[in-house]
């Protein structure tokens, strides 16, 4: 039988590890992005949205891997950010698995519901 403390320690390790990996990719991506775009003006004072391919995580992933596409470096940077953003969803999924292993139906259901809301918000 899996104990609550085991789930908690696993979660803690995943959260910390995931954040560190995401931060590393973000830092590398940022340097890489800035190196390719020296001297461009920051344009955040006017809201213009972001490219279409950022709307869907799957499309963005493809774009990040295709070197010749425009926005490739920007997509790579976005990938690091996405890794950071999905950490909480993984956290909830991990908890759900733990509760299923404990045969705790109520909390497996609650975790899965929260996970479903998170997935819905990303792909809706």
């Amino acid at each position, binding site marked *: 039988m899996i104990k609550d403390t085991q789930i908690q*320690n696993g*979660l*803690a390790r995943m959260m910390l590890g995931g*954040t560190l990996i995401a931060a590393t990719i973000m830092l590398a991506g*940022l340097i890489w992005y800035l190196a390719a775009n020296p001297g461009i*003006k920051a344009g*955040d004072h006017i809201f213009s*949205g972001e490219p279409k391919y950022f709307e869907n995580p799957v499309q963005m992933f493809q774009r990040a891997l295709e070197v010749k596409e425009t926005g490739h470096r920007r997509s790579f940077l976005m990938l690091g950010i996405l890794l950071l953003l999905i950490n909480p969803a993984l956290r909830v999924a991990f908890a759900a698995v733990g509760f299923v292993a404990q045969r705790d139906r109520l909390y497996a259901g609650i975790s899965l519901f929260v996970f479903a*809301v998170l997935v819905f*918000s990303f792909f809706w």
Partner: protein
Amino acid sequence: MIRESMDELTFDILISVAAFVAGVLGSLIGLGGGVIITPVLVLGFGVDIRYAMGAALASVIATSSGAAAAFLRDGISNMRIGLFLCVATTVGAVCGAMLAVVLDQSVLSVIFGAALLVTVGLSLRKNPDAANSENTSDPLAEKLRLPGTMPTDHGPMNYSVQRVIPGFAMMWVAGVLSGLLGIGSGAFKVVAMDQLMRIPFKVTTATSNFMIGVTAAASVGIYLKRGYLDPALVAPVALGVLAGAFVGAKLLPVAPVKLLRIIFLSLVSVIAVQMVLRGLGINF
């Protein structure tokens, strides 16, 4: 504004330094990075509030993951309470984010300033004493197995959980604010758990940290779809806040927290008023 003449590199260095300072102060004072970083970006750097909210929300997720990990390992946070209440906060966050994308940016600015003032008010309250252990819990809390134990100096202590439904409702509101404004709304979550549900303060803050990231993740997908996340802004801000929060946690035992609190909370109040004025079209 100075930033019109700035290139991306200078701009990124400046905002990561600002984010770093916000991260240090945020973790020393106990306010999340979100409520500070948005006004700094909007008022100080002239960033559109929608991009600022996107960057702030992403940094909230970063710091929440780091802080919550430490608390989980100590066995202080209550996973069942956290996940159960996340049902309310995530649904609320989706509602809030959907509302945010149709509201005008000046309206957002006013609501943001008002929420910031309430947050300052909430953090000025004294931390109440630990809830008493002999209380019986709300029957619904028992049914949901929410009451738990926390480690203390005198060994594990049992605690009860009260008023589940009002707490749940307040959490929904905290979720709406989080999605609407791109903040973690930690202060509101703490009030729900501590004041309404009478959960011990240590458990409350630890559990709230776990919940903040999950709540923020529910609206960040919607922000992403609407183009609120500019990677060239999000990355330096999130990295700065993350590094700042880490340093802040290390400084906590030696820093003059009381003095910093007073200075910082007054500063935040001024910023809040400025956000409201800006939203109303009064610039100075």
